[in-house]
């Protein structure tokens, strides 16, 4: 214990001397939160829409008014020919086109299925799909005013936990989870590899320190730094982005501590698998990119091919992002998150134990 304290003190001495690094550790998360919190949004605003009303009836105008009232769209003026619609989509002037064919009002009044055509620019499929979703719901709303009982317009969507469907609510916890991963995994990996590179690991090996003491003395400071950074990012998320904190601090702390087991373990693993800081950075980035892409942070896991979905079970970040979102937004407790913490404990525990055994073999 005494030895570990000395190692920790030495580590903080080094960290405090490295002012640029300290800045990176604490400023990087804030910059990322602010920039990514605004940049990564799946909300669609101001979608350019070109409208061609070939029916020119009060009903057709009512449909258009209903769509425009949603406030999501900006109308792009077009000539009254279908070719103009095509051109506006091709040029990128519009991302979405609404075409009301002749006879729309006639069919509507006759009680026949009345057609409305939505044409989307499939190149930016995300914007187009979300945009067309908005347009559809506006049209359905209009339809509901005509015949509230019969038409599917009376289907209402109510988003639980996030009534405005603010995408930042989902994204910010993801970013925070990612930042905790980056800071703790990278610092651990680089810190250990650096000691090997400059030869101090060998110098420590001729002292009576046990490898386990060395590892603990090395990772605890980074766990503490990671925890501080985590708390700071959460504070910003709550104060600035108004992310609710519906769960308990206890649940949050326990989940974060369990998750740290995996990130610190991965850091030790990287340091045993590489011999230079450059190699360590590359391996760390590989793990990070896999985590970002496969954790459901960027792309919904349910959209992935089934075989790849299996891989996501091996990505620790997957469980932590879910847990963090659920604690913040749903107020989930440890009991609600039993799948997540059990998975993390098994995954993290095995990574950690494997890495430490590997480390002991090397020194």
């Amino acid at each position, binding site marked *: 214990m005494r030895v570990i304290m*000395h190692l920790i003190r*030495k580590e903080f001495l080094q960290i405090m*001397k490295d002012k640029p690094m300290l800045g990176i550790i604490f400023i990087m998360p804030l910059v990322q939160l602010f920039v990514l919190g605004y940049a990564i949004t799946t909300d669609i605003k101001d979608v350019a829409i070109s409208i061609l009303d070939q029916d020119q009836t009060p009903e057709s105008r009512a449909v258009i008014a209903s769509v425009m009232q949603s406030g999501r769209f900006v109308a792009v003026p077009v000539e009254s020919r279908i070719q103009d619609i095509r051109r506006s989509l091709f040029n990128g002037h519009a991302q979405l086109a609404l075409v009301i064919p002749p006879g729309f009002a006639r069919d509507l009044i006759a009680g026949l299925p009345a057609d409305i055509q939505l044409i989307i620019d499939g190149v930016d499929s995300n914007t187009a799909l979300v945009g067309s979703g908005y347009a559809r719901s506006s049209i359905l709303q209009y339809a509901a005013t005509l015949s509230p009982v019969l038409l599917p317009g009376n289907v209402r969507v109510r988003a639980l936990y996030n009534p405005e469907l603010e995408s930042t609510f989902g994204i910010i916890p993801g970013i925070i989870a990612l930042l905790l991963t980056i800071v703790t995994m990278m610092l651990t990996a680089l810190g250990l590899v650096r000691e090997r590179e*400059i030869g101090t690991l060998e*110098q420590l090996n001729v002292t009576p320190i046990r490898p386990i003491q060395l590892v603990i003395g090395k990772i605890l400071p980074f766990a503490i730094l990671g925890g501080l950074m985590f708390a700071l990012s959460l504070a910003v998320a709550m104060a600035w982005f108004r992310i609710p904190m519906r769960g308990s601090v206890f649940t949050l702390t326990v989940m974060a501590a369990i998750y740290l087991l995996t990130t610190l373990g991965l850091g030790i693993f990287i340091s045993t698998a590489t011999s230079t800081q450059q190699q360590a950075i590359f391996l760390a980035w590989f793990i990070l990119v896999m985590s970002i892409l496969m954790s459901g942070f960027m792309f919904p896991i349910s959209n992935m091919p089934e075989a790849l979905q299996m891989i996501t079970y091996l990505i620790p970040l997957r469980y932590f992002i879910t847990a963090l979102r659920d604690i913040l937004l749903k107020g989930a407790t440890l009991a609600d998150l039993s799948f997540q913490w059990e998975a993390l404990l098994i995954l993290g525990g095995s990574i950690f134990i494997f890495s430490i055994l590997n480390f002991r073999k090397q020194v």
Partner: protein
Amino acid sequence: MAQKPVDILAVGLQKQYGDIRALQGIDLSVTHGERFGLIGPDGAGKTTLIRVLCGLIRQDKGTFQVAGLDGMRSIRTIKSILGYMPQKFSLYPDLTVGENLRFFADLFHVIGAQRQSREERLLHFSRLGPFWKRRAGALSGGMKQKLALSCALIHTPAILILDEPTTGVDPVSRREFWEILRELSDRDGTTILVSTPYMDEATRCHRVGFMNEGRLLATDTPDNLIHGYPYRVIQVHGENLFPFRKALETIPGVRSVCALGEYLRVSTEKTDAVVHAIGDRLTHAGATGFRIRTVAPLLEDMFVNLLESGRVS
């Protein structure tokens, strides 16, 4: 020295890296208070032997004892009484001289008044006192080595193992460094095992072991090794002697000819006839104004001879 205890004892140490047989059965014993120098060309296995003795790598075969403790079973106890200084500077370059020293003092649990007196002593002999607050990375090569030595000595180890501690250090710092080592063993009774590529440093040891290709070829005091040299060494001084080098090599009884700047260094059989033959041959070949004199062999001559006879057999 026979009555003194053996501090380092190696029996049949072998270590192999792939196809390279770094240690091919090393037997070594270093007695208490002795300065033992390991010399040999690069790749002879000196560093491997030292790393095995410090418990940094494990030997394939053989056993060793340090201070009477078994190298396999008691390695942690051994580490607490051993001081090790690696070839490469291995301290924290971002920490100051004082912080590095304190860190190693802490690790060995050297505290309080004891720490203070040791720090003072180490700073005195290393003359690092004025640099207490300087970053270790900003020290000169010689000062870095003295700091590394100070850190290795902070727990006053009974046995000190150094791997080429003065490689790349200026001559003045080298001499100071060896003065420190001499004092440590002569005054404090510290047992020192040191490897070095420099022959002049080897002569500062009580005993020298010459290593080549993973074997210890000869072990004795520098004087005994030199006296054991079976040939006579003569030097031919004069101007522009270099072209006559080849002419001398063919004289019967000449073992080797080496051109060293102003003179030729020739090792010969121990007969006066050979010396006369050299003079005759040089005059015959047209050399003028040269002087021939017999000189004492150097440790280096002995090792070149050992290397060559090893190659023949």
